[in-house]
């Protein structure tokens, strides 16, 4: 093997040493051997050296210097990646983030924290625990994996079923490009429109830039948690139970599973005393208010038994619960006890396909004569079959890899994806073309060339060769097409959103994006289409309990400016196969591409909507203080059905309306009501409405004159708190809707301006302004070149700021 460091001890090393000092640059054999590996067991070569910068500026200077020298840069967090993302090729410089571990102060009002990339996932939650908050993505490697690595892989974890994957917990990122420039993704809130660079960078595996700092969202620690453990004599039944749980409209925060082989390994490792004569063990967790949790557990237990569970038990206390999770989270590591080597997989299929895939894996196992142990993020349809072998036996190795490829094909045949959370790296390069279409692969390569023209950022990863022979274009749906078993719906761009939502609600589900549009005049604008929803990231002020459509969009068909139809994503709940074009384009208007069809995730509809109106006293300052407290209270109440919101009476500013989605049980809304009375005194009006009929009953009068029916509004993207809270309210109070999750403010007045606030768009009759110019720090040159990639002839809408040469 040629040894670059001995053959070529260039000026580069001394330049690096000048930046990093002696302790920040490792060039010895030991370091070069250790940093050649990660958790994937794959290798490409020996790195030139390892840089361990102490601050962001050192990191950027190091990257810039490498780019000038044409030396590849491989960013590394903790090297727990399973697809070889952090593995360097010969002569590359590894840039480790392990010394970038600053944690900013926790902003408990906005529920955010800014951290450097080397902070470990666990460390964020520990840091936030005093504020009653935590970082929701919880990969099994969370004790060791870095936030930078989580972002670069868009990591998932058991609780992502309820809370979403890493992407959904990012507000904004700071990053270094290949030149070492200090760049920003420029998002003040996660619902900002524009080509979403956060979505693009998240999951890009260090091939587009190095994340130097991240603004993370935090979520509340739940009031109560209950964890069920169920044992199944039959693996099929277990998979069926996972589908059943979600299909029944229950909202567990996690549904995890291990098969018998994995259970045996875990038992051997930890001796929990679980039965090992069962085919599968499943953990189901519910979180929220005690009564809701108790009720859900009861329903879930019955359902699990109905689906063939032999035994269902509930963790008696926190320590038993912790033990259960330890069993699940350490399962992967325990495979070392089963065989010296294994091919690990990360396939994901539409939820309803899970039992079928499980059956097929049994067949593949028998056909290839291999041993397989599997862990499942069952609620997400994501599974990690590990095929065991001993590398010293060539025949065994061959059979193991053949079986693994067969499993991946089986998942793709079921409309799945080759990777749900571990990433492509080098490990899945050979299977990615089975999934991606030609045009999609071309666009992904084009993006890489824009961000990294010299191919120095983690080269050789993520992109299969251009001539790899890609998959055929998947046909787009012709009409609204519900896949109830998968809890997804596909529809062409011109389908009526109102019609889609209505049909969904009849079955108790919806896309929770802030409309209960039962007739065309309501919510997101008259006659809004599925295409509009996706292109404009519409988030109506009415009854928006979830996130935005970006959180529920799974799959997108779109057309480039020069008329090429492409397909991105898959109808699965998580997917990291290549750059995330789906979420990058969602909300980018019709500037880069035209949406043609889309697939969304469906979620259970809240059963009812609580409505309270409270008078406000005439003293404005008192109001402010009370509204501040109310805002804080509401921000902390993010139930599984979404958070409450308040509306300050637009006409007179003399009353405030609070609405909260909830369950049709006396205890559910009672608790909120009690708290509200404590904060605001007696309400003058109170109603509990069936949620799916709320828009019929709630009139303009009830909510302040414009909120439901007006389609003219301005969306403001700075949040109270940014400007020192109280100063904001007196002016804002008169005509605003303030929503707690996500924290948004709307004004019905198109001309609304507040100092320091930035009006993102003005809606009128479903028409939306093109995205505004991006904030400083966002690389406009990249956006312009992206425009040329997607719309070479300028056939699509082009805002002024995108015109002309690079600045």
């Amino acid at each position, binding site marked *: 093997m040629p040894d670059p460091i*001995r053959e070529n001890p260039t000026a580069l090393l001394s330049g690096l040493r000048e930046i990093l000092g002696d302790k920040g640059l490792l060039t010895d*054999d030991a370091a070069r051997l250790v940093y050649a590996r990660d958790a994937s067991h794959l290798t490409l070569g020996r790195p030139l050296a390892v840089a361990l910068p102490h601050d962001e500026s050192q990191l950027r200077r190091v990257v810039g210097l490498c780019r000038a020298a044409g030396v590849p840069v491989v960013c590394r967090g903790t090297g727990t990646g399973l697809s070889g993302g952090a593995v360097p090729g010969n002569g590359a410089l590894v840039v480790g983030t392990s010394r970038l571990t600053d944690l900013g102060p926790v902003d408990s009002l906005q529920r955010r924290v800014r951290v450097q990339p080397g902070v470990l996932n666990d460390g964020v939650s520990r840091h936030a625990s005093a504020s009653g908050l935590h970082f929701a993505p919880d990969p099994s490697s969370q004790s060791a994996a870095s936030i930078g690595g989580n972002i670069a892989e868009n990591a998932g974890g058991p609780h992502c079923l309820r809370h979403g994957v890493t992407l959904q917990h990012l507000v904004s990122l700071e990053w270094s490009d290949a030149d070492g420039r200090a760049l920003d993704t420029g998002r003040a809130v996660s619902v900002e429109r524009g080509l979403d660079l956060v979505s693009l960078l998240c999951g890009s595996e260090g091939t587009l830039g190095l994340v130097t700092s991240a603004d993370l969202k935090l979520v509340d620690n739940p009031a109560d948690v209950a964890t069920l453990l169920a044992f199944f004599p039959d693996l099929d039944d277990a998979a069926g139970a996972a589908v059943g749980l979600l299909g029944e409209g229950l909202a567990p925060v996690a549904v995890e599973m291990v098969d018998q082989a994995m259970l045996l390994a875990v038992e051997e490792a930890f001796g929990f005393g679980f039965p090992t004569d069962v085919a599968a063990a499943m953990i189901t967790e519910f979180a929220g208010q005690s009564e809701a949790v108790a009720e859900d557990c009861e329903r879930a237990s019955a359902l699990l038994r109905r689906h063939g569970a032999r035994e269902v038990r509930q963790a008696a206390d926190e320590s038993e619960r912790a033990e259960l999770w330890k069993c699940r989270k350490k399962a992967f590591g*325990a495979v070392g006890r089963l065989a010296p080597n294994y091919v690990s997989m990360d396939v994901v299929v539409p939820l309803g396909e899970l039992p079928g895939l499980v059956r097929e894996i049994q067949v593949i196992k028998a056909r290839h004569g291999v041993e397989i142990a599997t862990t499942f993020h069952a609620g997400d349809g994501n599974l990690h079959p590990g095929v065991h072998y001993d590398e010293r036996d060539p025949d065994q190795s061959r059979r193991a890899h053949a079986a693994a490829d067969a499993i991946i094909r089986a998942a793709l045949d079921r409309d799945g994806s080759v990777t749900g959370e571990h990433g492509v790296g080098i490990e899945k390069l050979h299977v990615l073309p089975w999934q991606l279409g030609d045009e999609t692969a071309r666009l992904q390569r084009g993006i890489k060339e824009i961000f990294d023209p010299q191919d120095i950022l983690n080269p050789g990863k993520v992109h299969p060769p251009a001539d790899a022979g890609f998959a055929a274009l998947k046909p787009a749906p012709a009409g609204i097409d519900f896949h109830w078993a998968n809890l997804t719906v596909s529809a062409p761009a011109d389908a009526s959103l109102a019609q889609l939502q209505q049909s969904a609600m009849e079955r108790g589900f919806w896309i929770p994006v802030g409309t209960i549009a039962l007739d065309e005049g309501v919510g997101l604008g008259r006659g809004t289409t599925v295409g509009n929803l996706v292109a404009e990231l519409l988030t109506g002020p009415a009854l928006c309990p979830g996130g935005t459509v970006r959180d529920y969009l799974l799959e997108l068909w779109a057309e480039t400016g020069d008329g090429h139809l492409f397909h991105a994503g898959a109808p699965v709940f998580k997917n990291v196969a290549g750059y995330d074009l789906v979420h990058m384009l969602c909300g980018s208007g019709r500037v880069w591409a035209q949406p043609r069809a889309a697939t969304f995730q469906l979620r259970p509809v809240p059963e009812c909507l609580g409505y309270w109106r409270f008078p406000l006293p005439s003293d404005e300052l008192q109001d402010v203080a009370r509204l501040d407290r109310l805002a804080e209270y509401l921000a902390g109440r993010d139930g599984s059905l979404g958070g409450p919101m308040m509306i300050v009476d637009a006409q007179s500013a003399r009353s405030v309306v609070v609405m909260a989605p909830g369950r049709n049980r006396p205890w559910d809304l009672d608790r909120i009501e009690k708290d509200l009375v404590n904060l605001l005194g007696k309400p003058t009006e109170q109603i509990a409405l069936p949620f799916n009929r709320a828009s019929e009953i709630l009139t303009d009068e009830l909510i302040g004159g414009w909120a439901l029916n007006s389609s003219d509004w301005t969306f403001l993207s700075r949040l109270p708190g940014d400007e020192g809270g109280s100063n904001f309210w007196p002016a804002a109070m008169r005509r605003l809707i303030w929503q707690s999750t996500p924290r948004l403010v709307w004004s019905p007045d198109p001309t609304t301006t507040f100092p320091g606030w930035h009006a993102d768009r003005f809606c009128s009759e479903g028409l939306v302004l093109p995205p505004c110019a991006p904030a400083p720090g966002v690389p406009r040159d990249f956006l312009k070149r992206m425009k040329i990639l997607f719309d070479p002839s300028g056939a699509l809408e082009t805002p002024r700021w995108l015109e002309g040469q690079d600045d």
Partner: protein
Amino acid sequence: MTDPRPSSAVMDVDHLDELLRQCVQCGLCLPHCATWLATGNEVQSPRGRLLLLGELIRPSDTNTAAASDAFLQAFDQCIGCRACETACPSGVPFTLLEYGQLRATEVPPLRSGLPVPAVPGAVLRRMDQTAFLGFLSRVGDLVRGVLTVVAGKTWRRRLAGGPAGTGRLVRLLGSLPTSARSDTELVKMLDGLCGRETQLVGGSPNFVGLEIPDHLPSGPGVAFFRGCANAGLLPGTSRRLRDLLSASGCRLEEPGSQDCCGALATHTGRPGRAADLRRRNREAFAGALTDGTVIVAEAAGCSHELKEYGDDFRTGVVDAVVMLAGLDLPPMGSVPLKVAYHDPCHARHGQGIIDEPRKLLAAIGGLEIVEPAEPEVCCGSGGAWGLRYPELSDELGRRKAADLAATGADLVVTSNPGCLGQIADGLQVIAPDLPILPLTDLLWYAALLRIDSSRP
């Protein structure tokens, strides 16, 4: 009797190779490893060391000088705390790293470029001799006293950055374990923390200790293992432990010919002396082993090392904390303090002792136990290791001190002299007002309060 402690030459490389294959390279051990946390360098991590070990056992790349300084240094910088072994879901045993460590220590220091302890050899060689430690402790007390007068209470922080020579001396002084020699001193100190004044018996400053009942014939027999550091540096604590054991009904004996357990000699590359010490202790405790008397060792480091003597010692030796937790202790008075317990690695990772000390603390009325972040991470004392890697050791001590201080505790307790000194040193810099004591001393004080209040 053959000596069970191996040299690298007698370890079966094929067997090691097989064990090594159990490592799935997951990296879950990294955040438990003190040297990785302090350096952020994966060479100084368990997984990094195991990867290097693989290269040492079965070289794959002829370009790599597997026995180069960098390799050996990586093993040598391993503290041997075994936190990685506890953390590893795949059951990768510490034996592997121990092999690496042995390989490192077997290479003459000059050739391998490994650091030598930052104290003169003559001093180091005597560090396992009780009498010498006793002397050192008295000198230490004196110098510290003078420094406190001259440089104030925070002398450690002020002198931390002094010139190289003083730096070493200051460090050694700072990390020498100490606790109250006299009972009066201890009671005064804890009384001060609790904001109370315990009436001494008869108002006399000549304090009368715990009430020790006449030996019950049924009480367990205990052969007490002193340990060089406890006997030399913490004589008061050592006596208070014996009082507690006796007050709980144990029939105590103290074989006279016992000596240091030999851990220090092993860690400073003197296998001959270590073997000699082991032989002496075997003789001293042969009687206890045959008649089933439990051998109780006061320091976690000693109980751990003694258990390595062989199967007979592994079953015969009980750590003092475990012993106390299983006894009917005298009734305890109330100590209204927030107390953080620091787990010595020799207890937590070496012997799986986690619940026992907490159970003992929970038995004290009014006391609130607070848990520090990263309780499993080593404090960086590591015996002779800390003397050879003073900078790293200092950093780890401060990190640990900061974690302990962040709990808001009024008092820290632990059960190993090395940790006691190391953390005291870190606290001097990070949180000079937060005291640390041996667990024994706190238990003794609590038991004393009860006796005192029950008297007319």
